């Protein structure tokens, strides 16, 4: 399936579907509207109907919460950042009177994880496998966090009932959601809670209507395709923060062991201590968030950073503003990053080559060393996951989503990760096209000449295209890419120019559709900011749970599907009686 044809068809699809009813019109007074009217009359009308609603601002103030398995973001609506981000750590579950975290040597003692327990379990509020989740414990932890947010950071008179917008992942298990809602209602005296989906919030916070949201969280990476503010597809992978920090811990442990073998004088304890003295979750995560990074695609292929610490820095070096001639000396000039580990016994400072710090991302998220057929469906590497979810989308949505890959989640802050994912996906698309069959085996000889590899004209890598591309220019681009091979089947042939369509396209504001679908990443401000934007625009949510209703019926009345209506007027049709 070559690209140009669904490209050309795209604008019509979006225009046909443009049945929009705006949930709440913000202001009736629009000075630039072409409709003729007597100015005096208009003014009186707007003062009568327009302004009073905005003067009661304080009353319909609304709290925004965004709940993940590790952090709770909380703040006010239409603010750009949450007032507080609260982590669910093991420090939160101490007894009253346990003051050991203030002890001066607290940070020099390695807090040991429980052995039979999973990595990082103590830092999680919940996990998606609800079989082992202690819901009462989750409720208590969440309640404490919400109370802390309200008393320390919101500082409002708690008497007045308020509205709450809660952004959660749309596949949050129902017991967890019930617990979260119950806690919120109980603690915060909320009159109603509006549920939003994090992926849609991320899309809103990116300024888009459709996107492929790649949420690289703690437990799993969720790739959600959003089309016109609706979730249309979802895929998951366990390659996310947890695996990444585990890999980082392995790297650190290896370095520690190597250091001990190198200078055995420092090897204080017995050999049994080695198994004991392992890097804790906090340390691994600290190293990961501080100095972890992700190399770009070319250098990762050229010098897999696993193998040696001597590999060159790759393409970054070319762009760096080091003196000329240093390129030859890159092998030497890789700096050693010294990482203090005060909790190790004895306290040591590791000196790790900078390149080595990018290897966890390679192994954990991209699984370079593992052949693809060895991977299960649930642990696909990120680029494969993105590619597969794009592949499973209908072509017109795929064209939209391909150019709007939104990476969010905590791990996406890793420097270099975003561009790496996008360039990997671009390469996959270029190499394989949109063919779900990876290998035709013996049939491949008999197949007709596959022309998709002939014109990689549109997929020019991760280079961001000119945003303000005029329709005319992209049209010529299309034309250039069309005229390549001789035997084009009819389905692949370019659409004949439709004057009506061209006119529509010319008139429509959304000339985004006329862009060639390059693989492109879009930054987002995150789910919390999206929810804050949605609340700030007074968009009415589809799933709004009243307190009394919740107390009476639980989640039964609300259906299981979240979305937002109003912005495009398109949400809410999926609300099935669950």
């Amino acid at each position, binding site marked *: 399936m070559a690209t140009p044809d669904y490209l050309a068809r795209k604008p019509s699809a979006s225009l046909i*579907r*443009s049945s*929009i009813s*705006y949930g709440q*019109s*913000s*202001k*009736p007074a*629009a000075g*630039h*509207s072409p409709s*003729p009217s007597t100015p005096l009359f208009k003014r009186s009308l707007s003062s009568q*109907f327009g302004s009073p609603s905005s003067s009661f601002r304080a009353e319909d103030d609304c709290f925004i919460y965004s709940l993940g398995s590790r952090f709770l973001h909380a*703040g006010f609506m239409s603010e*750009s*950042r*949450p*007032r*507080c*981000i609260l982590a669910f750590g093991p420090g939160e579950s101490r007894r009253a009177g346990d003051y*050991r975290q203030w002890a001066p040597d607290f940070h020099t*003692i390695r*807090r*040991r994880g*429980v*052995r039979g327990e999973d990595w990082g379990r103590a830092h999680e509020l919940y996990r998606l496998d609800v079989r*082992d989740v202690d819901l009462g414990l989750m409720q208590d932890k969440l309640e404490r966090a919400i109370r802390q947010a309200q008393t*320390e950071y919101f*500082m409002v*008179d708690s008497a007045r009932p308020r509205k709450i917008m809660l952004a959660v992942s749309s596949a949050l298990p129902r017991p967890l959601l019930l617990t979260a809602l119950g806690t919120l209602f109980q603690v915060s005296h909320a009159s109603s809670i509006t549920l939003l989906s994090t992926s849609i919030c991320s899309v809103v916070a*990116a*300024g*888009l209507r*459709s996107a492929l949201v790649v949420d690289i969280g703690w437990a799993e990476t969720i790739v959600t395709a959003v089309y*016109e503010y609706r979730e249309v597809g979802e895929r998951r992978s366990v390659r996310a923060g947890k695996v990444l920090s585990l890999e980082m811990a392995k790297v650190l442990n290896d370095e520690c062991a190597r250091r001990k073998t190198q200078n055995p004088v420092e090897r204080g304890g017995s050999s*049994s201590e080695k198994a004991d003295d392992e890097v804790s979750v906090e340390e691994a*995560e600290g190293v990961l968030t*501080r*100095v972890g990074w992700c190399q770009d695609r070319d250098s990762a292929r050229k010098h897999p950073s696993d193998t040696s610490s001597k590999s060159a820095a790759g*393409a*970054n070096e070319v*762009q*760096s503003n080091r003196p000329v001639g240093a390129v030859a000396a890159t092998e030497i000039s890789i*700096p050693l*990053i010294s*990482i203090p580990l005060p909790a190790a016994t004895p306290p040591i400072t590791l000196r790790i080559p900078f390149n080595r710090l990018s290897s966890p991302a390679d192994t954990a998220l991209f699984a370079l060393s593992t052949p693809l057929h060895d991977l299960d469906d649930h642990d696909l590497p990120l680029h494969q996951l993105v590619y597969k979810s794009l592949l499973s989308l209908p072509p017109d949505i795929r064209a939209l989503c391909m150019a709007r890959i939104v990476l969010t989640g905590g791990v996406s802050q890793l*420097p*270099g990760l975003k*561009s790496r994912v996008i360039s990997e996906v671009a390469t996959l698309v270029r190499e394989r096209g949109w063919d779900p069959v990876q290998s035709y085996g013996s049939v491949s000889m008999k197949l007709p000449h596959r022309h998709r590899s002939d014109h990689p004209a549109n997929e020019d890598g991760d280079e*961001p295209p000119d*945003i303000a591309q*005029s329709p005319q220019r992209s049209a010529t681009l299309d034309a250039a890419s069309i005229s390549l091979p001789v035997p084009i089947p009819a389905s692949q042939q370019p659409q004949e120019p439709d004057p009506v369509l061209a006119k529509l396209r010319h008139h*429509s504001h*959304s*000339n*985004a559709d006329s862009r060639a679908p390059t693989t492109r990443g*879009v*930054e987002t*401000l995150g789910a919390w900011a999206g929810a804050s934007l949605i609340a700030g625009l007074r968009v009415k949510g589809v799933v709004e749970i009243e307190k009394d209703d919740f107390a009476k019926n639980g989640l039964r009345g609300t259906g299981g599907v979240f979305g937002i209506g109003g912005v*495009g007027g398109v949400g809410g049709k999926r609300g099935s009686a669950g």
Partner: protein
Amino acid sequence: MNWFCPNCLFEVPSSTVKSEGNRCTRNCYNCPICTAPLSVNGLHQEPSSYLTPKDAAQPSGPYFLACPYCNWTTLDIGIQFDKPHKITEQLSRTKNGGRVVSSPRDPEKQRMGSLSRDTPPTKLQEPPDTSPQEPPDSDELFSNLAAFYKNQLGEASGTDQLGVGYTEYGYGSPSNLARIMNMYGGLSYTALKKSRKKPAPMREAQDTNEGLHLVSSTSEAATIRRLRDQGWDGTTNAEQRLAIPTNNDARFTDDLRPVATLLPTKRTKRCRTCRHILAKLESKLHSTRYKIRLLALNYIPTITLRGLLDVPSSIPTALTLPSSPSTTTSAAFDYQTLSPTTPTQFLLTLRNPLFDPIRVTLATPATPSQRPAGKVTILCPQFDVGANTDVWDEALTDSTSGKDKSGRQGGVKDAGSGGASVGGEVAEAGKVWERGRNWTSVIVEVVPGTAGSRDAGREYSFGGEEVKPGDGDEEGGEDADVLEIPLFVRVEYETDAAAEDSGVVAKIGREGVEKRVKRELAYWCVLGVGRVAG
């Protein structure tokens, strides 16, 4: 409700908090590195002139914030101030590196220009020029996005404005409108119809002015380069990032901003179920006194657990005051190394804070759930504790009660068949060990289980705390070797009906004739015993 700044003790009214946020808006800032309070220093100030009064120092000249603990200054992030006051205002106008924050008006104007209908976005040459060098921060992006959405929604509602706004006046129907339009001689009906067609869907943001921000590999590469050059010390840790929202995405220490002090307030505590106020401070800022203070400590018995040892001297000294047994016994008893699977006897003392005598019933679970499973036997689970009367009462009645006690213990000694023998004293089941004015001690026998995974046969599936073998790290470990015993305490007492309004105590029955109310209190608690030797 009033908030105050703990640093400058300035009271902030509720309205200000609502409008300006939960941080001190004066000069109170904390160091983003080490959280010590920052002080305002003059840049050209001589060291000696710190001692001279403020007026003597030169009034002009740039100022900066400095941390007296770790020597971090705002000069590190390239910020200095013209005036020594109104730091918040000046800080909000400068970005890190001394760049001036463009006032919100300018992008607004730009945006309005770009978003006006007839200009296609191709006309925007300026923004792509500026954006690559300086990626917009998230605040800018957010305000751009918010403005964009508002604009879009407003525009869209503008097109069907006639349908929405004018319906109340009967202008909604096309024929009416056409009539009126003809009257005014404005547009024709067809033109009007055209304007009332379905609104186009709200489009997406298309450039930085509208909040779109593309992933750029160059900026990420720049970040990596910076990371490589600055190393570990140039980066921020999680606490520094989470201290204030503006530091949330500060990766390097150069990106940190001073942390404005968080305003606390004096909060009242209410009962969770009946909303009764339990604690309330005086509203005056400088006073630390309570207006209302209902502590559970004043209503439930204080429970202490001490090791009972073969120190014979502990018995006679323990007779006078309840605190004395602890001082004598704990010196010899080693709580850090309890020997597993050996019965150890402990002295459980309940002290009654109430002015009425209480009757206590204790219970422990049959199967211990804690990880170093201790098997607990309370030798005397039901007993009375005297009222918390005046201290002098005991002194006055000392002779009788002393006799009583000695007699009782003599009885214990004589009967000594049921309990284990501890250095001549015998703890017997069903008997109180000793008793004072408002306290009673009973013997508890604890058989600590083995700590950790020493015996491989035991499996505790409920996320039980388990330590690795050879884990000598006691203090910081997962406390797997701490032996704690759950204890169910049930307290019954009779009190005057007048004291009914103490909302803590649950009451069950009332004997109306005598105006005496029988109350009952029951709760679970956990007693820490000590650490089991590994």
